[in-house]
């Protein structure tokens, strides 16, 4: 067994002080160092790809001894799902860093900013590649703290208010997660998700039920499912654009990933055959529909450019919840994970583009914008690509994943008639998503020009946006690689 995963975590950790020091001299170089770190991380990760695609278990595992008392070894692993999520996270962080070179140019305290960004990548990647729940929780919180400081420190108008809201909400969620993890340890005496899963099968279903609910509630806060979504519009719109891209792209996706991996993957099989299992999935579906409609409808009338996108994120997490509720079906789960990836790229791009518009115009209200397509052609193109992808229009990325979710939904209808109405409603939501996407594009970029002398964005911002836009198109036309990877993780998903 070679060791590729520990360096994946160590590299950005060790890079953080260097980034800080370098940034004191030149922030541009520091950002490029982050990009390089991420690239090196991706390279390290991709050495595991053969193990995942061709190995017998479709999984690559590393184990180090850690806290012997808790029977917890420092377990790192990647399978198709983790690999895809971690890779896309690193891509998004590096483009965010690139984008920041120009976007954050005039801001103060850039050394701290870039260092926090580097630390954030440790937490985010860590969440995706560990199978030890203790370590998972550790990374889960490590993801929260730098984001809090970035939102608060470099935010827009009332940043600390938004950051506080974000912190309080997600931390309250984290408490539920910790409760669930503690309960798993109590019941099974094990913190490794794969072993805990086997051990939970023999546990008392009543307890497992509460563990499942507690964990899912905690993760749902991170995902911003509707009753607990209040932190998201504020945090997303107050944060600086690169951070919004990360928040919307990967941090809320981490919540969805955690539901899939921990709630559904580890705990759910124990209660799957009981009537509660069905009810739980139905509950997820309902939550998904409510989120999808709520987000889409508000995005239709919201005037603030970044809040439109933020509500669209809520709507898309609705799709993901709906996809998760179809759990055991392979097409649906593949589609859901693929949607996390596609949504991350598209939404990241959309936030970067919105940031570009805000930076060039210095306003946020879309009603005051218009006709920018002529003045900011690159931004207009990337935004349109992103918005149409978000609306699920081929040949852009999100189409294929949404389509797979719907295929899974129709498969599920065959087994469970309950899903007929939810599926129909989700189809309506798909139309609504096009409506707000077109409204966004129309109000910002089309129509009579309302601003004179607006120029397009500086080169690094443009580069970041073009890279992501290319990725959106490529993922839309050739999703094969990720679909293969994700489907290879089906041994984990098979129940």
């Amino acid at each position, binding site marked *: 067994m070679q060791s590729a995963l520990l360096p994946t975590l160590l590299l950005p950790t060790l890079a953080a002080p260097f980034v800080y020091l370098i940034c004191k001299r030149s922030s541009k170089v520091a950002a490029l160092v982050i990009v390089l770190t991420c690239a090196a991380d991706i390279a390290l990760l991709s050495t595991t790809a053969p193990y995942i695609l061709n190995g017998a278990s479709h999984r690559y595992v590393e184990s180090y001894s850690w806290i012997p008392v808790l029977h917890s070894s420092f377990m790192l692993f990647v399978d198709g799902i983790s690999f895809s999520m971690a890779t896309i996270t690193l891509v998004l962080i590096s483009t965010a860093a690139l984008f920041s070179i120009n976007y954050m140019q005039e801001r103060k305290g850039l050394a701290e900013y870039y260092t926090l960004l580097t630390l954030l990548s440790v937490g985010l990647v860590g969440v995706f590649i560990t199978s030890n729940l203790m370590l998972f929780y550790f990374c889960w919180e490590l993801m929260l703290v730098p984001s809090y400081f970035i939102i608060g420190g470099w935010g827009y108008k009332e940043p600390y208010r938004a950051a506080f809201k974000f912190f309080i909400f997600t931390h309250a969620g984290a408490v539920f997660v910790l409760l669930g993890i503690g309960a798993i340890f109590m019941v099974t005496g094990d913190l490794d998700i794969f072993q805990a899963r086997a051990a939970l099968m023999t546990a008392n279903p009543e307890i497992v039920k509460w563990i499942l609910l507690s964990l899912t509630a905690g993760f749902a806060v991170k995902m911003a499912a509707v009753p607990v979504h209040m932190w998201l*519009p504020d945090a997303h719109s107050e944060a600086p654009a690169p951070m919004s891209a990360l928040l919307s792209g990967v941090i809320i996706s981490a919540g969805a990933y955690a539901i899939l991996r921990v709630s559904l993957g580890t705990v759910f099989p124990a209660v799957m055959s009981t009537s509660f299992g069905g009810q739980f999935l139905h509950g997820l579906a309902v939550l998904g529909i409510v989120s999808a409609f709520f987000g889409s409808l508000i995005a239709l009338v919201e005037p603030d450019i970044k809040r439109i996108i933020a509500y669209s994120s809520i709507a898309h997490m609705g799709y993901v919840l709906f996809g998760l509720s179809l759990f055991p079906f392979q097409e649906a789960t593949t589609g859901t994970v693929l949607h996390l990836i596609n949504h991350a790229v598209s939404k990241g791009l959309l936030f970067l583009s919105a940031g570009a518009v805000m930076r060039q115009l210095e306003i946020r209200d879309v009603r005051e914008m218009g006709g920018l397509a002529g003045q900011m052609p690159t931004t207009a193109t990337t935004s349109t690509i992103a918005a149409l992808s978000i609306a699920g*229009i081929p040949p852009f990325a999100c189409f294929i994943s949404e389509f797979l979710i*719907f295929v899974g939904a129709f498969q599920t209808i065959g087994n469970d008639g309950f899903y007929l109405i939810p599926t129909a409603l989700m189809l309506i939501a798909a139309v609504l998503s096009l409506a707000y996407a*077109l409204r966004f594009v129309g109000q910002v970029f089309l*129509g*009579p020009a309302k601003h004179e002398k607006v120029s397009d964005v500086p080169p690094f911002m443009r580069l970041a946006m073009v890279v992501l836009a290319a990725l959106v198109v490529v993922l839309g036309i050739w999703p*094969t690689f990720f679909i*293969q990877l994700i489907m290879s993780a089906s041994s984990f998903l098979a129940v």
Partner: protein
Amino acid sequence: MAVGLVATVLAASMVTDVYFASNTSNSSLPWIPSLGVNAGVLVDPLSALFASLVAFFSLVVMIYSIDYMADQENLTRYYFFMLLFMSSMIGLVMSDNFLQMFIFWEMVGLCSYSLISFWYRRAESARAGVKVFLMTRVGDVFLLAAIALLYANLGSFSFSYITAHVENVPLPTLTAVAFLMLGGAVAKSAQLPFHAWLYAAMEAPTSVSALLHSATMVKAGVYLIARLILLFGPLTASVPMWSSSVLWIGAITTFVGATSALSTPDIKGVAAYSTVSQIGFMFTALGTAHSASSPGWFAGLLHLVSHALFQGLDFLLIGGIIHATKTRDMRLMGGLRKAMPITFGLGIVVMLARVGMPPFISFFSKEMIFQSVLSSGNLHAALLLYVSTAITFAYTLRATVLVYVREKSDYLEQVHPHEAPRMMLFSAGVLAVLCTVASLFGEPVSQLMRADVEIGLNEVLSPSTLIFLFTVFVGGSTYLVCCRKTSLAERLGQAPRYLNRILENGYFFDAFYEKVVARCILSISSGLKWVEMTVFGPMPHIFVGRIVSLSNVVNERVEKSLLSRLPYLLASCIVRLSNAIHENLEKSFLDRLPYLVANGVTILAHSTRYYLDVSADGLLYMITNKTLASASEIQKMRSGSIARYISAALIGLLIILVLTALTMLR
């Protein structure tokens, strides 16, 4: 311009490519192997017909655009999307599986959106694009659901697999699939109740409209229905109500489209509603077909070709007219036959072809549609079609009169219209010639389509033909006789005013979508936004605020009033205690203690001295007395004994000495 040439070459090569396709062939590459999806090309008569049609019309429209778009900006974008439009449509018809077809299907919608909004600075164009895209998207979602449902049951998107295994699908599912697909086709082909978008699409540059109406976009729905009939084959008959739904949707749309065309003042509106109506004919024909060998199937597709020819021609002419007059309002036009004689001549061709006069190819196609509908026994539908045909002549005549024939309007005196540029006339001429002579090529077309149909002028004299021609004549003459005024309402007088309003508003479909549906959704959204802003948004703050105020209360009541003063209280208690101690104990007692002690000692000393003196004196006297008494006793008792006397004296002396010493010491 260069891009236009590239397009020309591309399109031309497509045409020749497609001519080789006389057999069904299918080649594919693996695309998403884990889902069993391949990217493939299917060449069969249906796709060959469509692909050649699309390629040919794209070529014509590209040539036309060279002049028509010459003075426009952003031509790169224009040609990019025109090419993408064309290739998406070709991709759509040549896909060999539903997933790929759907992707191209959506891309067609995407291209139409960007082309309709081509003049993006104009608010109407931007809005029209949104409307078109959204309305067709509703249909796309139906189609998506149908494809997903089919995949869920069969596990494949491939056409050939579906044809082979479609019997295994349970009938309810098949019914759902068929109707959902019908929904998709209806929205894409602008049939009732989704026909409203086609008029909005008129905001596009006219060359785009020409392509959109002749070969791409609206024809996709017809393709889908035709393809579905091929795929499901005889099963279409077993799906309840499906064929008759197709037929009736087509028939009613035909009527609605024709009547709407009768009242619109917009020259492009006439063309748009005419397309709606003509595609209704195609749907009606397809509704009678249950397999590729049914006459209805071929009739529908033949009419598609003929409609493409005359409608494409119509739009090319309209483009020239708008170019020359700078307006779309027919009420401002008139007398263009003198200013634009070639256009007028071609316009007559359009008029006759649209109505379906022999020898234009549309005569044969319409004729076959009537035959197939009559032979399927749908007399009511046939009747509706006859009425629509009559109205078709009426609205065509009206448009011709308004634009070309009547007196020149005041407006045109100022504009000075001129004949269209050469490239535009050339491409229009090509279509006009084809329109006229295409019927000669009926034989190869029917062979290509494997249809057993004869097309020849000898059919002109059949009874149904006579009925058809009679209807047309009635329609035209009624219109001419009634009057040649601008609006139907004037013709009908004041009586049915509501009819006029209905027609002028396009049966209120537009109003329904914009005022009711869109407004409902927006008001729900605003409501939710309000909820979000007043309930959800501040909720955490209210919650936190509550906690903070609770903390404040605790702070005020407990902390400030009690806890924070507790140390002081304690301290002051201690201080008071100390004071009390100080006052009571220290000052009153302890301070004076030394004095008291000293006093006591002094008193003690005095009293001691007193008592000691007195008692010591007494003791001395007593002792002396006792000693003397005892000495005399001893003297008395032992007289004469000097020794005893001396010793007694000595003892006495000693005692005296002691006593003296005691006294002296004092």
